[in-house]
């Protein structure tokens, strides 16, 4: 039981992710999280403003149920499977983060400077969270997939489109991490 409570190594997580992907296809569906964003927009009546969203969201109910599973999985993990909140990141990462104003890196899963309620309630903090979400939602639908659809399924299918998209993920991520984050906090 103890090994479940420890942080899981990459060679445990990677294969389980592949199994999850396999299972979704085995059940006759797809493996991709970001298309749910469109399903929820459609469900919420976005079709009144943009024709694209006039599709019948009910046909994607299976994927919404999958996402509910993600929420439940996050809850179970947090409640019963994660005795320590510490994330053992590289000490160099910790000192790099201290230099850009993010202290106690790795003491918890998330930095307080971005995710605490206090940060969320400031204009700047709220905008950081909102813009991060808008970029992810906009970019993933523009590219037609996120880390699951392009990153896992696409790369596994050796799809050229997904290699380009994942290359883009890294270009964007490197620009944000190296050239923008240092000036935000």
């Amino acid at each position, binding site marked *: 039981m103890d090994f479940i409570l420890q942080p899981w190594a*990459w060679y*445990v*997580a*990677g294969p*389980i*992710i592949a*199994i999850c992907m396999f299972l*979704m*296809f085995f059940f*006759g569906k*797809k493996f991709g999280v970001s298309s*749910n*964003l*469109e399903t929820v*927009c459609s469900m919420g009546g976005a079709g009144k403003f*943009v024709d694209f969203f006039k599709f019948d969201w009910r046909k994607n109910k*299976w994927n919404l149920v*999958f*996402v509910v*599973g*993600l*929420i439940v*999985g*996050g809850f*179970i*993990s*947090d409640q019963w499977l994660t005795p320590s909140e510490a994330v053992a*990141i*590289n000490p160099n*990462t910790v000192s790099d983060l201290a230099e850009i104003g993010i202290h106690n890196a790795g003491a918890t*899963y*998330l930095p307080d400077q971005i*995710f605490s309620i206090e*940060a969320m309630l400031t204009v700047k903090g709220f905008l950081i*969270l909102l813009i*991060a*979400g*808008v*970029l*992810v*939602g*906009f*970019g993933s*639908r*523009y*590219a*037609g997939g*996120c*880390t*699951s659809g*392009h*990153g*896992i*399924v696409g790369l*596994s299918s050796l799809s050229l*489109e997904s290699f380009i998209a994942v290359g883009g993920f*890294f270009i964007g991520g490197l620009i*944000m*991490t*190296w050239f923008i984050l240092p000036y935000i906090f």
Partner: protein
Amino acid sequence: MKYIKYLLVGILFGITLSKAEVISWFRIYEMFKLQSFHMYGVIGSAVAIGIVVMYLFKNETLKTLHGEPIIVEPKKKGVSRNLIGGIIFGLGWALGGSCPGPMYILVGKGVVSILVVLFGAHLGAFLYHAIKHKLPH
């Protein structure tokens, strides 16, 4: 009841990304600083096994629950859509430290502020479809 299997896969996926700390902002930052193998190992080993799984789908060794061949829909072609969309996604991934899966998982973890990110993600998806006719694909 036929939906419960999707719920269970979601739970497994959610627990796995939580326990492997893929939902940690710090792990994403560390990945983009190229200071740890962890995230590359997670994605790389998933893809390595995924390549075998896809091969077995293609030669029909593996079929669906109902015995039908598994066809993986190809992604839409176009350098602009994949590259520009990818870059925009990457900027957000590194800023918020979470891609769509982890956003939902963090809701389950009880992180209130992730709801702002999740709202933003829906807004972003909406905006894309509202202006996509003006964008290069």
